[in-house]
């Protein structure tokens, strides 16, 4: 049930996710070398626009990418189609956006300066 535009959206978001995933893994491996506490992580991320954009763009790309993938699975395996398919796909996208967005906000700006 993929047309050209959904296909391109999924490929372009994959292009965004790939370097961000590598960056996430590299920083994680580097940062935990000498052990790292929650407080130390938050000290680096709180108030950081760079980390907000880094993980924010990852959440944005994941929400679109995963929703399109779920759309294909729901159509091919569960036989959901038409308006229901579009509504559930958008629901998956929004759910991931809200959940991921809350997590990113929590480690960057929520409680910043507290």
């Amino acid at each position: 049930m993929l047309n050209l535009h959904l296909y391109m959206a999924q490929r372009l978001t994959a292009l965004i996710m790939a370097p961000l995933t590598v960056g996430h893994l590299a920083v994680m491996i580097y940062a935990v070398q000498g052990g790292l506490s929650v407080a130390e992580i938050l000290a680096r991320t709180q108030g950081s626009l760079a980390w907000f954009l880094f993980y924010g763009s990852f959440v944005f790309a994941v929400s679109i990418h995963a929703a399109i993938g779920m759309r294909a699975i729901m159509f091919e395996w569960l036989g959901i189609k038409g308006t229901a398919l579009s509504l559930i796909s958008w629901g998956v996208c929004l759910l991931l956006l809200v959940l991921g967005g809350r997590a990113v906000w929590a480690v960057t700006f929520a409680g910043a300066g507290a």
Partner: protein
Amino acid sequence: MPETGEFLEVSIWREQDGDGHFESFQVPRRDNQTILDVVSWVQQQADPTLSYRFACRVGMCGSCAMMVNGAPRWTCRTHVQKVADDNRLEIAPLRNLPVIKDLAVDMDPFFDKWVAAEAVFEPSQTRDDPMAPITPQDPMRIAASDAIECINCAVCYAACDVVAANPDYLGPAALNRAWSLVNDSRDDGQDARLKAVSGGGGCHNCHAQQGCARYCPNELNPTLSISGLKRATAKSLLGWGQ
């Protein structure tokens, strides 16, 4: 053909008016016997009401494809010894197509999708124009040649899980043909063709599982052709040309 003294246990799908079941037959096993030989023996010696389709018997016409022990095969060129499981054969009509009777399927949906994919040559010149100079070394000619030896047998269509899941999917054969025409520099229908393969049943639905390539009797690779269409449509969308 000399008989071996052995018998094949053959289950053949019988269907009429939507009511179907497997029926068992014992068929003498012979050397160099093909699946089409087995089906023909049943029709000629055991039950003349058995319906099936074939024409050339030499792998040219693409008429005789059936499911054999669960896999799509061109039956005239498939030897029993290659596919029989302990002298047992299960022969059924091609998957993903409606059954007319017994082993004969309705090929209309298959060919309708060739038309829907704009897999038809659109000439850019008339017979009064000079011949188009295309060398065998031309990269587009080479890409077209890789996809061109399709006999329309629908084995790939029956092997494709995306067709099974999405009845609107154009399928490997139609998209493979569209790709051979995308590489035909004489063709004048590229915009319509790229649009036709970009819709809800288009090339972007392919999961690249390569069932089509695995079972194509002419060893074509429709998955590769579909990948070419994905590239061509993406470039067209981004305005990068072909």
